[in-house]
């Protein structure tokens, strides 16, 4: 398979997932900041909530890595 296409796929995987993750994280973090302003004891819990949407970016990164590994022959079908 064309390496260029695979590289493009890897880029889209990480790019789109990071975009979605960033939007989600922005929403969660702003809500968390509001909650922490009300009650400081919620800091640790809210911090965890704020990083929850990062998962999608991580999955995107892993898919990109698998695609790159595939392109360079580190794994085969």
């Amino acid at each position: 398979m064309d390496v260029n296409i695979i590289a493009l796929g890897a880029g889209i995987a990480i790019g789109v997932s990071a975009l979605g993750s960033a939007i989600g994280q922005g929403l969660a973090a702003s809500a968390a900041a509001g909650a922490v302003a009300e009650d400081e004891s919620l800091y640790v819990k809210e911090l965890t909530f704020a990083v929850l949407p990062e998962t999608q970016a991580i999955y995107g990164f892993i898919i990109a890595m698998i695609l790159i590994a595939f392109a360079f022959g580190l794994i085969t079908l």
Partner: protein
Amino acid sequence: MFIPKQLYEVVLIIPQKYTDKLLLSLGNEKIVQFKEFDERFHQIPSVDFPEIRTNEAVKALMKLDHIIDKLKISEGKPAKASKTPINEANELVDKIEIRYNKIEKSINENQSVFDELDLSVEFLKSIKKIKLKEENLFFLIETEDSVWNDLLKKIKKDNISFSMLKRRISGDKVLRLISIKQTNETKLSKLLNSFKIHSHKGTIKDIEAQIKTVLDSIREKIRTSKRQLEHLPKKYADEIYSLREQIQLELTIMENKRKFLYSEFTSLLNLWITKNDFKKFKECVKKVTNNNFVIYNQYPKIKDNPPTKLSNSLIFKPFEMLLQGFSLPGYRDIDPTFIIALFFPLFFGIMLSDVGYGLLLLILSLFLLVKKKSFKDFAQMLIICAIATIAIGFYFGSWFGFTFIEPQLNPLKKPIELIIISLGIGVFYVNLSLIIGLVQSLIKKDWNFLLHEILIWLIFEFGIIFLIYPKLFRGYTTLPLHIIFIIGPIIVRIFSKGILNILDFSKFFSTMISFVRISALAMSTTWISFAINLIYRLVKQFPKGIYIGIAVLIVGHLFNFAFNTFGSFLQAMRLHYVEFLGQFYQGKGHAMNLFSLEKKYTL
């Protein structure tokens, strides 16, 4: 280590006269939590505790807090204890308020005079361009319009010829520079005195000099007052913080005394104490009451909702703060601190995975441990994480992204192996959490939780394993076990939680897959380090590029270290809170609030 400390519920009867002495003694020991009497004790006839001065203490405390806030008083050194802290606090606050207001009033008054004179100087400067008869005499006055009108009538009556320049400064206040012949000086001076109007007279230069001298003196007065104001918080800090602490302790004693029952001569106390401290407690009571006491102790009952006091060895203790940040385990729950203490550094270490970054973190956490006593637990936790990072960094062969020794596992060359290892950790860790949940449910005999939150996942997992490896049970049974094991839990879930909760089965696998973040973070640390080192190699080829290259190395690696340390910590924390504790942890505990009369600001 695996469960919170065992507690006793204690009922103690002592002669009332020893109550205060016992409270002081227990307050220093910090071993008990007093509890309210429940319905079992309601039939005991009791009298009210006579001396309750809570309102006065709270008012005094509020006054102290107000003055601390107003003067921004920072913590002082320990001061001598007072016999009547509430009265002394009230007197001291009043004294400080009077002193403060006096200085503030003096500053405001001087400042307003200063501002007005400053305007006069400005006025004089602005008229410098106008040609004035230098042989004339000038009077600078500040009057209101109504006063000026009366004065003008008198001036006209006395036939004093004059010319005048004026500027309105505020409302009806006007600055006037009156120019007259030298011969009229006495007449005008008399008139101004009769109207009690203060004036500066002479040539323009004289007036300017006079005002500047006054301005300097006022400026000095303001400075002195401000110095006095700055000195005020330092002067009273020790006394204020000591009185505040004494009142707080008095309130703590009062609040706890309210929890006791009293007869005419005895006090009845109900409290929680750890089994380990019980002997010490008994000795303390014996000593205070001269062996005049009746004591009864028993293990807590489920309905009593006993508090939780975690019990972990020194190495695991720092990780209690991670659990406390989430929520405490119930009294009868398993305390997972020891597991978190084992796996949190492991996850963190794999995610940061660099000997250099590990060493940096070790230095920073040692510095934190020595310099900030309040961060002791956090620093100790970071030290353990730093050691794990160094060890795993050796395995990955990464020293600030450079490779000096052939690595056992290079994330750049073998990313897929790393992803598989992370997934393996995920499968193991989620199953470990289910096993802990299983043991906990069996201990607590919580059959509902056991079936709906633990067993269905374990059975479902078996179903999946049988589906993938049907040879495992071939020859033992002809039943389609893989179908039963998969369909069974789904049916149970639908009937117990509703049709929408069928989605939980995909969530169960995503929980395991979520652990691939360990490999993602490890790769991102390594890749960024690699990129920084690549830029360095490119830049150093240019003339004098070595200097820019070194700057790139320092800034780049510091950024990567800070960014990925924070990221690794958060992700390791998330894996524990969401993926691990989320499987079994109920966290309905409440902390044991030990009765303490510890003094920090009082000798």
